[in-house]
């Protein structure tokens, strides 16, 4: 009986995209952060208001540490507070006479907003998946309804938010609805593609097993679509937070980041650092949510080629 020769064609490494080791990536991120700080203070060094001792509200008449040669409006203390003043404001009481400092206050507000956003995110993801599933199985419904899906997103959320609050009441439900509204769209669009993203012969293969539509969906379409799903979820994560923050003001929510931002905006002149602190908090919240989704993605896409990319 003919036997194969010794070299059976062993496994070959797939072309690997070399991602930098994690240490180097973190270092790169830190360097970018430091670079931003340098540019920031550099602008103030050249054209800001005279530098005084650190402290969120420098006392007028305190000694001037440095007098910049130019005066640029964008670099003054109102528009661009010193980074150390922003850092220091985290430790101040968030309101005159309050017991929590700005950091704790922002953390609580961010968590509150995150819960609304996460709920909207989950609902939006579910609706998006359901819609995409329907569209992939019914070309008629797809052609009929996708234009409306797209049109829904072109109306600015700022205009829609008060309408939603009016309909659902000034409460958390409105905020969740807005977050859902902004989440379902990327998921729908990505999954319409994702649920079809396989070699058509795979469908012939399933047909040769007399597979039911349900079986094809669960064993082929859904697993094939996961990379697309997670791409959409990463977009949706940040979109749901933006939606929650925006939705909080017409929603009359007192405890979220939306209200904090509005308040600090109103009192900007008395403490510009606080608004920046709130912006930083919102940014950290967005990044944290993104990273959570990314962690789940790495788990779900284990073993697939290119799983670690992005």
């Amino acid at each position, binding site marked *: 009986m*003919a036997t194969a020769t010794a070299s059976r064609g062993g496994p*070959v490494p797939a072309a690997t995209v070399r991602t930098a080791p994690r240490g180097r990536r973190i270092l790169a991120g830190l360097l970018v952060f430091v670079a931003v700080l340098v540019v920031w203070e550099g602008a103030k060094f050249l054209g800001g208001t005279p530098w005084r001792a650190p402290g969120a509200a420098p006392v007028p008449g305190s000694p001037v540490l440095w007098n910049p040669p130019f005066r640029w409006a964008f670099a003054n203390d109102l528009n661009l507070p010193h980074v150390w003043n922003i850092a220091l404001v985290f430790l101040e009481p968030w309101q005159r006479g309050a017991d929590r400092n700005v950091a704790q206050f922002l953390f609580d507000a961010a968590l509150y907003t995150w819960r609304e956003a996460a709920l909207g995110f989950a609902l939006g993801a579910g609706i998006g998946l359901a819609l995409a599933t329907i569209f992939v199985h019914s070309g008629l419904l797809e052609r009929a309804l996708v234009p409306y899906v797209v049109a829904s997103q072109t109306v600015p959320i700022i205009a829609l938010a008060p309408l939603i609050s009016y309909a659902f009441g000034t409460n958390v439900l409105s905020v969740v609805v807005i977050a859902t509204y902004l989440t379902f769209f990327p998921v729908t669009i990505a999954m319409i593609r994702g649920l079809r993203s396989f070699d058509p012969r795979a469908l012939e293969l399933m047909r*040769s097993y007399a597979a039911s539509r349900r079986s094809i969906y669960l064993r082929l379409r859904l697993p094939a679509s996961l990379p697309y799903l997670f791409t959409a979820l990463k977009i949706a994560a940040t979109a749901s937070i933006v939606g929650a923050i925006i939705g909080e003001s017409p929603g009359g929510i007192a405890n979220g980041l939306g209200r904090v931002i509005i308040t600090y905006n109103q009192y900007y002149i008395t403490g510009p650092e606080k608004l920046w602190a709130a912006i930083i908090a919102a940014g950290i919240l967005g990044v944290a949510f993104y990273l959570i989704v990314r962690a789940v993605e790495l788990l779900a896409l284990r*073993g697939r080629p290119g799983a670690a990319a992005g």
Partner: protein
Amino acid sequence: MTTPTPAIDQPIVRIAAVDKQFSGGDRLVTKALEGIDLEIRKGEFVSLIGPSGCGKSTLLRIVGDLTSPTRGTVTVNGKPADRARRDRDYGIVFQAPVLFDWRTVEDNVKLPLEMLGYDAARRTSRAREMLELMELGDFLRHHPYQLSGGMQQRVAIARALAIEPAILLMDEPFGALDEMTRERMNSEVLRIWQQTGTTVLFVTHSIPEAVFLSSRVVVMSARPGRITKVIDVDLPRPRTEQTRETRRYFEVVTEVREALRAGGGAVDDAGRPAGGGSLDRTIAEGAVG
């Protein structure tokens, strides 16, 4: 067991007067197949060979009920083709492995077993048995992208055989592989065929491959595909690398090549059937409406 079960004389596949037309728009009707009559006996290894576009892949898909004939009938295992498909009488291997890249090698082979409702223990033992048969026992936990093309195709074959199909349909399975790997895979397929006794319908572009593997070679003409000639390959079994060097082998290869030419399929310098059936000729023959 090295000799195949003697082919029982009842045909397991009966193709009768099959025509296939594709309509692409109002005017362009492509006649892919015309008047195909063929019987395949149980346990036979039959190759379909012909120039590009002659409809051999279409015929394979008609047998597998992945597309239906415009006219004519196909009977498999005594049933109409669609019932045979629903009874899961087929295994199919394409030119690309078409493995699921989110499943391990073992889980890929388990796919049809899951769909047939085998229990977990039986799924595992059957999948492992098939992968051992293909000599991939060390790669159960690997993912498809970690394997070479030839190995992936072996996984695809293991998967096709997992449910013990009555008929194995193979559509140019080794077309994407290099010549040496291809010859090795030919020997593999023969070994599997002898061990399992499955009936095989094999579509190929390669004359040497068709002759080496088959009990019979069905030569098809250029579009519209008709059967030009059915050649019995009386080379003794088991066939080995030595078989490829015998005079009788070359005689059969020549017979196949001449039948291809007669059917209007040009044969290129490498001795492979080249694109035959130009649209002009088929229009002249009045075959295109």
